[in-house]
């Protein structure tokens, strides 16, 4: 009996046909043209256009970035008022001056850039050396467009903070500092955010060894003393000021969140948070797994609506691969996404009402949620963490009675939603707890980068399903609900109505019926061949082995794709270097921004109000902590 070696350990270097040419996004010319318009409108010297991207993209001088951010925000025509995302990508090879330095140097080596040589930025890399790409993504509500700004920073260099322009950049800058060690000058509170104080090094750097372990002892734990709000600084009351820890393990926080509040009597006059208790560096793990293997990790981001995460990630990679998913798979993805959105809102409203002592609603809302999970389980064999989608489609076809089951659910759900409305909507006890509690104005919410129900509760009708439709949402008749006030009550109203709108979409989807056909693309470099072929046919068996061993190899490039998650815009930014592992997967978790505004929202309120507000924001720790 001889022992064989594990041959999967042999690295594969040959190219697959999927990655022979760099990635060219579908709307690159439109984005380039729009980029020219933006550059002409802004007339800023520090911006160099980066062509051939999926949205208008610029490389900005390090010294100019805050200036550019401010100009983009204050421009009447452009009005990029919303900071969607800020993250970094590490290209360690670039610092050595090699031109062939990973994915980033593509802009001056590739022939597939703009056909017009004058439009190419030939000196982009020499003018902007540096190891890290710090990437800002802004959104303009006025023009419904996005923009990407890249700043190249060398190791040890620092950037000026953008927090005076966009409050929403506060936590993002801390995250980039934590993960890459890029220092933001002038940041009000630049300490680690996702990892703990005893952590050594910066986890998302390419040279960081992921197998290291750092132990946090009691002595290392940060003593957080919240800054007292200036409004209350000199107010003299009869009470003694008390600093109180809410969490990290507290029944009202729905996840491990630590909120430190300073109280004056019952009034909160200072608050600070600590997050990262559920941090597992999903993004680093993605870099050591194949594209297909990342899907189970995305389940764990927002575990209340896991299928939306699956869909978002898969669609980002499909965009990179340039493949179109079969109609049947799209239809199922849309239906299950809507079911998951309803489930997400059911959890949010149900638990929020439990926080306020209305326990009965919890049972009424969790029963339909249970039924939704039953449907998901019938499709893919798991309830909470389905991993149902695959890159290119779905893992398996839906069961034959899928539409009947969906119809039964759509029919039974309004009863439960109406019951909850009857229980609370005219109930003064409930209204006293929510009306005017933790309000946020529309300007503030946009400045913080709110998306989803929390933004719509401020009266801003931004919904990714309407703004940039995907999966055929543009063909469905549904409304985006908004409310005014931006308080806990408004968020409750918006979520209640959104569930009804989702039911409308589902009813239409059921009436249209499932399109016939396969549920996954017929492409041996993306999807596994059918098992009957694998068992019988040599060629298919080879493709099967190749795909498992060498994975999907998308073309070299980077792309961003956004879907409307339960809490707002859920975006995935995928950078490919042509190998089987993603070079970088960035997830834009919607509740990260929303939670960063929490201290501002609860200032001057009481602890019970803060609890009610926290529930209405629907903070999901898996997503918040990456």
């Amino acid at each position, binding site marked *: 009996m001889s022992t064989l070696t594990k041959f999967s350990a042999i690295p594969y270097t040959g190219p697959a046909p999927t990655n022979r040419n760099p990635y060219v996004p579908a709307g690159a010319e439109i984005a380039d043209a729009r980029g020219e318009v933006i550059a002409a409108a802004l007339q800023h010297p520090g911006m160099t256009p980066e062509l051939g991207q999926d949205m208008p993209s610029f490389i900005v001088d390090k010294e100019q970035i805050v200036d550019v951010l401010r100009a983009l925000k204050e421009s009447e025509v452009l009005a990029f008022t919303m900071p969607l995302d800020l993250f970094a990508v590490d290209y360690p090879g670039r610092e050595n001056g090699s031109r062939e330095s990973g994915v980033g140097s593509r802009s001056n080596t590739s022939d597939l850039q703009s056909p017009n040589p004058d439009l190419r930025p030939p000196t982009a890399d020499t003018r902007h050396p540096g190891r890290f790409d710090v990437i800002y993504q802004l959104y303009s509500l006025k023009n419904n467009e996005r923009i990407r700004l890249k700043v190249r920073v060398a190791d040890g260099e620092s950037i000026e903070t953008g927090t005076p322009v966009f409050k929403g950049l506060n936590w993002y800058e801390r995250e980039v500092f934590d993960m890459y060690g890029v220092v933001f000058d002038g940041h009000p509170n630049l300490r680690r955010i996702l990892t703990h104080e005893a952590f050594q090094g910066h986890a998302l750097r390419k040279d960081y060894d992921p197998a290291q372990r750092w132990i946090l002892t009691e002595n290392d734990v940060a003593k957080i003393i919240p800054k007292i709000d200036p409004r209350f600084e000199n107010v003299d009351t009869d009470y003694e000021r008390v600093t109180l820890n809410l969490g990290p393990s507290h029944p009202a926080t729905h996840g491990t969140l630590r909120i430190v509040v300073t109280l004056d009597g019952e009034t909160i006059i200072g608050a600070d948070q600590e997050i990262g208790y559920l941090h597992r560096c999903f993004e680093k793990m993605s870099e050591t797994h194949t594209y297909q293997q990342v899907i189970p990790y995305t389940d764990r981001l927002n575990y209340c609506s896991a299928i939306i995460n699956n869909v978002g990630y898969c669609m980002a990679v499909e965009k990179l*691969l340039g493949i179109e998913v079969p109609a049947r798979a799209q239809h199922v993805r849309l239906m299950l996404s809507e079911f998951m959105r309803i489930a997400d809102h059911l959890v949010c409203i149900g638990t929020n009402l439990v926080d306020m002592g209305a326990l*009965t609603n919890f049972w009424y809302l969790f029963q339909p949620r249970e039924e939704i999970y039953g449907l998901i*389980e019938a499709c893919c064999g*798991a309830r909470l963490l389905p991993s149902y989608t695959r890159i290119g489609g779905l893992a398996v076809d839906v*069961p034959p009675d899928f539409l009947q089951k969906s119809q039964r659910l759509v029919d039974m759900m309004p009863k439960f939603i109406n019951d909850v409305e009857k229980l609370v*909507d005219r109930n003064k006890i409930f209204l006293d707890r929510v009306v005017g509690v933790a309000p946020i104005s529309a300007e503030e919410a946009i400045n913080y980068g709110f998306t989803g129900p929390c933004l719509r509760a401020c009266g801003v009708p931004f919904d990714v399903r309407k703004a940039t439709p995907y999966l055929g949402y543009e063909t469905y008749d549904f409304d985006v609900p*908004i409310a005014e006030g931006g308080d806990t009550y408004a968020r409750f109203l918006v979520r209640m109505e959104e569930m009804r709108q989702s039911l409308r979409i589902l009813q239409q989807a059921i009436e249209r019926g499932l399109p016939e056909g396969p549920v996954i693309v017929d492409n041996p470099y993306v999807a596994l061949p059918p098992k009957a072929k694998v068992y*019988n046919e040599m*060629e298919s068996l080879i493709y099967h082995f190749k795909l498992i061993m060498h994975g999907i190899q998308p073309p070299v490039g980077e792309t961003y794709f956004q879907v409307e998650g339960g809490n707002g815009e859920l975006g995935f930014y995928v950078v490919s270097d042509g190998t089987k592992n993603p070079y970088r997967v960035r997830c834009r978790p919607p509740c990260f921004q929303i939670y960063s505004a929490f201290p501002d929202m609860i200032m001057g309120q009481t602890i019970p109000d803060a609890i009610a507000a926290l529930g209405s924001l629907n903070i999901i720790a898996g997503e918040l902590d990456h």
Partner: protein
Amino acid sequence: MHLTRVRPGVVKVERTPLTVLDRLYLPAVIGGMLVTIRHLLHNLFNLKQLPTISYPEVKRVYSERFRGRHILTSREDGTTRCVACYMCSTACPAECITIQAGEDERTREKFPVRYEIDLLRCVFCGYCVDACPEDAIYMTRDYEMAIDTRARSVVGLRDLVVPPNFPVGPMGWRPYYGAIDKHGTAGGTGVGQQLRSAPFEDDAPPNPDVFRGGDAQ
């Protein structure tokens, strides 16, 4: 809670104005109690339809796609179907499968000397089943895997391999459960055998040029 249309595609949810009656607390409380009592009476007279089940006396029946504990199927002659090709351990995102391959001196067949799944690492995603080219690993509907020590979470060949012609009844995630005969068995005359002899319609070999930038360029 009623709606006013702001513009096409956007509706505004109006706040409920409270009437004098509502401000008195009691009508709303009584209205709420009526809803609760209606549910109570409905449940009292429809005990069989209660949404709760008395676990563990009553167990929930999961679909035949349920991703539970794994099994390794056997051939008719009792040998395990697994050929230690490492596909499952390569596809596993949790890296919970450990295989050591051996070679049968007599038949020159490769087979697993050691095959271990760490059930505490396993995320039950079903990728191992999808990856298996030999119809050797299935998932069952068994979800009760409580253990008292960490060491017992690692299950080996002794726990995983089932005898030939194991009934398909308790089976969960497996290739082609839709096409399977309910009375069939796993392994032996199971799915694999049915599929092996099954003709398939689309006989064309996969086209490598389906991609932009394929061989054609």
